């Protein structure tokens, strides 16, 4: 079975049924199911999520992207500091970066106050962290390859053509 094809299909649509996957990949349903379980066990598939435009759902949230400057410890390098940060449930995404700052941390909170408190009380005091720079998200245009502001796609083609 073409594992990459399978992964690309569920990456785009996590809700696609096993039967549809089997049809698209020209494989049996049981083989597809086995393959998915294997990929889950191997942690190649790490989760299934939904792209939600929270602005539209009238549920006020605040997102911020925080650049974190950090000094690695001699024994554990960056990973130990990173763990101290990403263990907080407020952190949705975290990367080690090249460039001016060591980490980029994305956090979601209910209010700007909450985000500010998180940075001041939780993030900044962590040993090894020497600088933070917080950027609040004003508007989201595109998330995970999806343009969240766009209208549903209309078919602009003629209904029958040769």
């Amino acid at each position, binding site marked *: 079975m073409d594992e990459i*094809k399978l992964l690309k*299909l569920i990456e785009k649509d996590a809700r*696609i049924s096993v039967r*549809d996957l*089997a*049809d*698209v*990949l*020209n494989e049996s349903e049981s083989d597809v199911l086995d393959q998915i379980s294997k990929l889950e066990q191997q942690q190649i598939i790490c989760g299934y999520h939904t792209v939600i435009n929270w602005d539209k759902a009238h549920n006020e949230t605040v997102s911020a992207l925080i650049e974190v400057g950090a000094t690695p410890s001699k024994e554990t390098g960056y990973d130990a500091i990173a763990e101290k940060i990403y263990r907080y449930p407020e952190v949705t995404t975290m990367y080690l970066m090249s460039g001016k700052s060591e980490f980029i941390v994305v956090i979601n909170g209910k209010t700007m106050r909450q985000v500010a408190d998180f940075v001041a009380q939780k993030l900044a005091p962590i040993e090894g962290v020497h600088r933070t720079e917080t950027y609040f998200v004003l508007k989201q245009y595109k998330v995970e390859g999806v343009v969240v502001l766009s209208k549903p796609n209309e*078919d602009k*083609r*003629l*209904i*029958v*053509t*040769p």
Partner: protein
Amino acid sequence: MSKYVNETIKKIAPSGIRKFFDLANQMEDVVSLGVGEPDFETPWHIRQEAIYAIEHGYTFYTSNRGLDALRQEICKYYQRRFSLSYNWKEEVIVTVGASEGIDLTFRTILNPQDEVILLQPSYVAYEPLVTLAGGVSKIIELKEEHQFKLLPEQLEAAITDKTKILFLNFPSNPTGGIMTYEDYKALIPIIKKHDLLVLSDEIYAELSYDQTFVSIASFEEIKNQVIILNGFSKAYAMTGWRLGYLLAPRDIVTHMIKIHQYGIMCPSTISQYAAVEALKYGDNDCKMHKDSFEARRNFLVNNLNRIGLTCHMPQGAFYVFPSIKNTGLSSEEFAERLLQEQRVAVVPGSAFGTCGQGYIRISYAYSLNQLKEAIKRMERFMQQFNL
């Protein structure tokens, strides 16, 4: 006022698809699987180039043969993708879609009563264009049991003293059939023996799935007897830009260019600039489009077989051509009733030649969700036949 109209034109029947379009167009809630163009929008970087061309005033005529840069890129592309060498200065004309290339070739080559061998079922324009150029069409009926391939004995049997052109169109609209290297190889001695000019419509070349596409011009011994037609519509999702090209021996191009320069002058300059971008940086777009079509092909064919519309796995283009003979209906009856009863639009196979009778053309240039809805409706439709 039709007394003014040319007699040949009067005799040409309007496209059978048109009739069906009118019918489907007045209905609500139709799920169409009747379209002969990709559902993708033109990739953004290509559209950006066109916008750039407009903003910076690249809005003048180009040379009759097309932009130098575009012809160079076309030759690089055929070299890169299919290992075929053409001279951009002498062997290329950029045309208004591949359609112009077909018309141009027939008008350049055919004397009155010269014969053109056409394979059917095939695209609706070929036969009328032969007629308009004063030629005579000789139809070879391709068979489902041969996966709609052209067999050497069929070709041999169709050749007469007047045969001048063999028209090939693989991957095929509407059958999805292809020709492999071996399939073509068997034809080469016949083409050589009868000194035929081969016109090869390769517009669906990039949409070949389980086999790599082979151009008949790859056979060195007949390359100087081959005219290749291609374009940007299907591979790059650029149907509305109306841009194609032809690759042909220099001595033929010299004459073709006369019709093109007086009749057309040059295709849209804006489109030509966009096409340069497509060829330079669009290989990945082609691949993405192809992968997506392949997934949908598999999905559709597996589901059609499940609901009793049996068909072989088409190897190219984006059409499935299932037989509906076991329903006892004609292609037109089937398509019309499917539209009336379940609001699904497909094209009757007979629109692509009389031998398309007993088949329908289903396009899979649609999202999986659209295909799913169509299959649900078609399944309901098929239940009445108790197959």
